């Protein structure tokens, strides 16, 4: 069984298995200072598409559904993310609005870091910045897979072969 989540990252047992969290003691201490930990109920919306990014959300446990919504209100699930994932990273870095809506699928602990503090943290800790670049690259790979599935996945109905 997984051990209970810790409010301090430095005491977290799962840290080393998680890409973003696996930081040096120095960086981790600084991260502990700027993050705030909250428990969210299933169904809580962490952020909505087109909202200006306030900060990033680091998922300590549970799952979150990321979806895109059209102007007419139609919804398409982009992916389901699990523990250790960082949400809202790209919007936070570009300073633009969130490109997806994130909704909690379980009751779980989430750490939040405000945008301004994150940017400062990334400038001061190069290893964290490199981790972020890696995470964004992976997110991008997954997003392009979705583009491929959505844009090219639709198969045309094959006409039956004429019988001779």
């Amino acid at each position: 069984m997984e051990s209970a989540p810790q409010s301090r990252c430095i005491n977290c047992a799962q840290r080393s298995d998680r890409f973003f969290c696996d930081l040096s003691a120095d960086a981790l201490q600084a991260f502990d200072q700027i993050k705030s930990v909250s428990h969210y109920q299933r169904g809580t919306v962490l952020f909505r598409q087109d909202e200006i990014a306030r900060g990033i959300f680091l998922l300590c446990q549970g799952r979150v559904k990321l979806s895109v919504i059209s102007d007419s209100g139609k919804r398409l699930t982009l992916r389901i993310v699990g523990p250790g994932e960082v949400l809202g990273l790209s919007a936070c870095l570009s300073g633009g609005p969130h490109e997806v809506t994130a909704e909690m699928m379980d009751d779980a602990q989430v750490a939040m870091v405000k945008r301004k503090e994150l940017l400062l943290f990334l400038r001061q800790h190069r290893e964290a910045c490199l981790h972020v670049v890696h995470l964004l690259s992976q997110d991008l790979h997954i997003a392009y897979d979705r583009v491929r599935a959505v844009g090219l996945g639709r198969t045309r109905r094959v006409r039956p072969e004429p019988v001779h």
Partner: protein
Amino acid sequence: MLSPYGLDIIESCLTCKVRADRIFCDLPAAALQCFEGIKYATAYPKGAVLFVEGQAPRGIFVLCKGRVKLSICASDGKTLIVKIAEPGEVLGLSASVSGKAYELTAETLDPCQVNFIKREDFLRFLRDHSEACFKVAEQLSEKYNNACHEVRALGLSHSAGEKLANLLLEWSSKNGEATKQEPRLKLALTHEEIAQMIGTSRETVTRLFADLRKRQIVQSKGSTLVIRNKAALRLLATNG
């Protein structure tokens, strides 16, 4: 220097005049000096393939001049254009960082100048220069944003008509024409390429354009398209 393609090659990033306007290139002096040492300035004709989807990453390509078509391909040969990259953009970034295969195919639409950096050199450069690392994160964020937009546009629009209307509205909002009553836009792509951008056939795009012209929603003058009835186009974009 005058080259066969009419391209004026910028040999050195240090003396590049447009550097300050480009997100990635606007680096501090020390990082720029290091970048200068690892990059190769190359010129490509129109139609050259920089890298192919599925290929192991060799490195990144900084687009200095010209446009590059980024597309993905299905196993049945159907192509989808994800984006037309403009000067200042860095291509092959996520694959070079993660070490996974290139997820797109990049083909030049014009004669282009491209600065190439080998993957190992680039990764070392990122480790040594935190400012560059930050800029790469910004570029990746922008690409992610674009990919999500693409999923939304392709996955949540019903008809090809809806997608084309959306694409025309998006283009018309780009070059300061958005506020005009009748925005103009230059169609720099063929019907075939537009079809590949919205995931439909060339015939459908031609038919849709003919229909838009007949209903006097758009008017074409050579390669310039004038949107005569923006409200009607908006309605098409939401209802299909």
